[in-house]
């Protein structure tokens, strides 16, 4: 059973949830870049997708080939319940870490 998710893995999973319509590599990358405001390595995204699938957190299938992609099909993905659970747990773990912090510390005041 997967125990935790890295920051980038969380981003990829969240991007999958955000994307409307067919979820595959191109919109996932765009989603992360638009929301984080920084460029990400496309290869890193695919490697992460492959790893998440191997861990059973997402599943994938090939769509029908389309002409606009040189006859290549899209590798579509969707998040699995285990993925959702782990994502939620990761968010809670992070929130607990933020809890009870004195806001003045975050503003740099003593």
């Amino acid at each position, binding site marked *: 059973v997967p125990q935790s998710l890295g920051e980038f893995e969380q981003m990829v999973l969240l991007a999958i949830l955000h994307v409307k319509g067919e979820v595959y590599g191109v919109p996932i990358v765009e989603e992360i870049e638009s929301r984080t405001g920084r460029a990400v390595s*496309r290869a890193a995204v695919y490697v992460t997708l492959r790893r998440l699938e191997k861990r059973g957190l997402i599943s994938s299938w090939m769509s029908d080939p389309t002409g606009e992609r040189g006859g290549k099909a*899209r590798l579509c993905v969707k998040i699995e319940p285990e993925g959702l659970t782990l994502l939620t747990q990761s968010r809670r773990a992070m929130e607990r870490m933020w809890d009870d912090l004195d806001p003045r510390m975050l503003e740099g005041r003593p």
Partner: protein
Amino acid sequence: MSDWAPPRLPRALLGFALPSDVRDGIVGDLDEVYRKRRSEKGWLVAFLWYWGQLLAFSLRLGPARVREIGTIIGSSAGLDVKLGLRMLVKYPMLTIIGGVAITVASAIGVGAAEFVRDLLVPSIPLDEGDRLVTLRQLDLEESGPAPASWHDYLTWRESVESVAELGAFTVRDQGLVSPRGESDAVSVARVTASAFDITRVQPGLGRYLIEADEQDGATPVIVLGHETWQALMDGDPQAVGQTVQVGGVPTIVVGVMPEGYRFPRNQNAWVPLRFPVAADPASSPRVSVFGRLAEGASLETARAELTGIGARAAADYPETHAQLRPELYPFANLISGGRASGILYGVRAMLVLLLMVACANVATLVFARTVTREGEIAVRTALGATRKRIVLQLFAEALVLVAASTLVGMGIARWVLGWAAGLFWENQQEALGPFWWDDSLSLVTIAYAGVLAFAGAVMIGIVPALKATGARIQPRLSQLSAGGGAGLRFGGMWTAVIVFQVALSVAFLPLAVQQGGMVFYDPFQRSNFPADQYITAQLARDVVVPPRTAEERAEFLEVSAQLFDEVRSAIATEPGVSAVSFASGLSGFNHVVSPVEFRGDGNEPPILAVSRTMLVDQSYLDLMGAEVVSGRSLQPADFTPGSRVVVVNESFVRVALSGRNAVGGMLRGPEREGEASEVAIPAAGESYQIVGVVKDPEVDVFGPGAHQVIYAPITEAPVNPGAVGLVGMPAAPATQLFVHLRPQAEGIAASLHTIVASVDPSLRLSQMGTVQEAWRPVHRQYRMFGWIFMLVAGVVLALSVAGIYALMSFSVSRRTREIAIRAAVGASQGRILGIVFRRAAIQLLLGVVLGSLIAVPVVWDDIQQSATGTITLSGLRSVFIVVALLTGAGLCACLIPIRRALAIAPVDAIKSN
């Protein structure tokens, strides 16, 4: 969005670099993004971006792809190997002939490569043995190595820093007598005490030599090797402190070295090397110098340092050292003298050549088989198998055959190597090989054979497979489905291989037939010579301090001669001994070989020949039963210095003089510029009269009459009457003793050691045995070569016959339809035979003619000798035998295909097609 396609090359590379599960998805995504970028930012940006993506994806997903390819190869390789094994069973003749050919080629190649490697560049089984080095002088005038002197050793020991420790040694066989009176000849090293520190081996008992043992006046001490300790002292644990006789000198045993320690080469006892401090380099004794490289020093740094020291020595001692340059090389190269690489590469090249010749021939057979599977290949192609897949499968099948054969070949090489090495060292008159000798196959040789096996499999598998899966597979499929003969042809390349094969057989087999004769020739069975009644041994006299001046040397040889005479008298008085004799060597080998010029009594021009000379004493010729054929034998009056008479054997008259009358003729040593030899008999410029001709020895290891021999009185020895060198070499005062026993007196052999030791303890008898035993190692070696020749000849012949069979078989199967039609329209059987046989006959003929062109010059000498009418036509005869054999075998190979062709029923054949 526009229809811009991404750049082809990176896209293709990407397809190759990505794992299959994500390949389409990623390539499609990148296509999509590329188009978008190109429309927004232009071609160049998009182009560079795509290459960047290729790099990024290859780095991140490349390892996964490599794992995937490994898995694919693993699974298909298993299947291919299974298919390959099935093919071995399905085509047994090809498996046997091809397998034996590759096995023999790899066994000979691997065995020879390993043997030469062990001989020339072995690894030394001592602690950091690769840092042991040998130092010697290079004589620039002679362009060859020269031994170092004791003076050099002392100089180097003081000045060389790159070699941390230096030692020196000399070796010689010496008689050792145990405290209980048992004697044996042992190879003794006189070494500096530093030798033991350099080799880093501790004694098994007692101590090893120390510097105090080297001092003048020190008690003589000896360290025994494990084998000598076992043989002479029965492994007595109390051996240390006991006294043994070494060359007649009482010597205390101070230690015993552990088993296997035979430094520096094959020595089994060590005594201190004692020389006075040599002020004069000219008279300084010769020694072998060795050492261990200092920490951090390399061969190069040591050589550079030694070069400087050599230059100083040349300046200090111009008379002796001006032309000398010290050189240094790994101790492992002791035998090769650091000049091994050429021979090693030569032998490896032979391995390549042997294996490639075998594989080229097997490839012919495999191609013929592949042709018979043409239908299978075409159908598989039609079902979607790629050319690559089919070629890989055929390669895997070939690899199974080659790998299995090479493995068997290596196994045989490993087995034969131990045997051959034993024989080799026996012939070198060493009971054991040097201490570093290792019969096992080295990793380098195994890896080399592995690479060659792979290359062989490529030749056998890939080349025929590429031919059989060429671009015209589709038309071939149509032809097959239409019932016609397919398009593959037994093209020029394969024809050339068969012609070459037949030519090779004709060229090589006569030699093999001649050499193979040695396998069946037993010199002792065919002769009436009672070889078991003759005992022979080397008799030598050891010295504690070798004579240095000419006077000392003359005195030493004089005393040696007297002692040898005493030995003769002592043995002759023994009951059971019929006669005793001395000669310069054992008949058949160990002769002085020198050029001679014969002048007859007429006006005929002189004849120049090369002959072996044996120095014999008065009783030798009678002892060996060498009856006089013409003239007279050697008489007592001939044994006075300066008598200048010799007798020759029949073979000399027959071969060297072409049957001319020898008696009364003169033999003269021709003058040779710059080649003064002190062992040539007759010496250059001196003349000897031939007074008689004696019969060839009844028994000869190489066959009757194989040697042309001049028998000269022992008093003509260039060094000293009576104390001749083993081969006339002045440096080795030794002689060959022959004792003729009366019947049933063999037991006396055991007491000869004692008789000799009783005359003088410094005398040593070695390599004792009957004449038959003395000859046996040489005979065994020649038999081994005979077997190898026969084996290779058999393989060559089998490959030729199989090649012809494959060609004929192929020809018939390709022309079945044509033959059927011809038969249907009334062609006679003879006509059909002509069609089938013509091509094979032409190739056979071509091969025979080509091969004969090579073979006849090789055996031409034999043919010329036959002009005298006394020598058999062995050379020419073997060519005829081979041609007949090959033609017969070739015809037999045609029989089955011809029968098949004649049995074709026209209607059935046309119908089935």
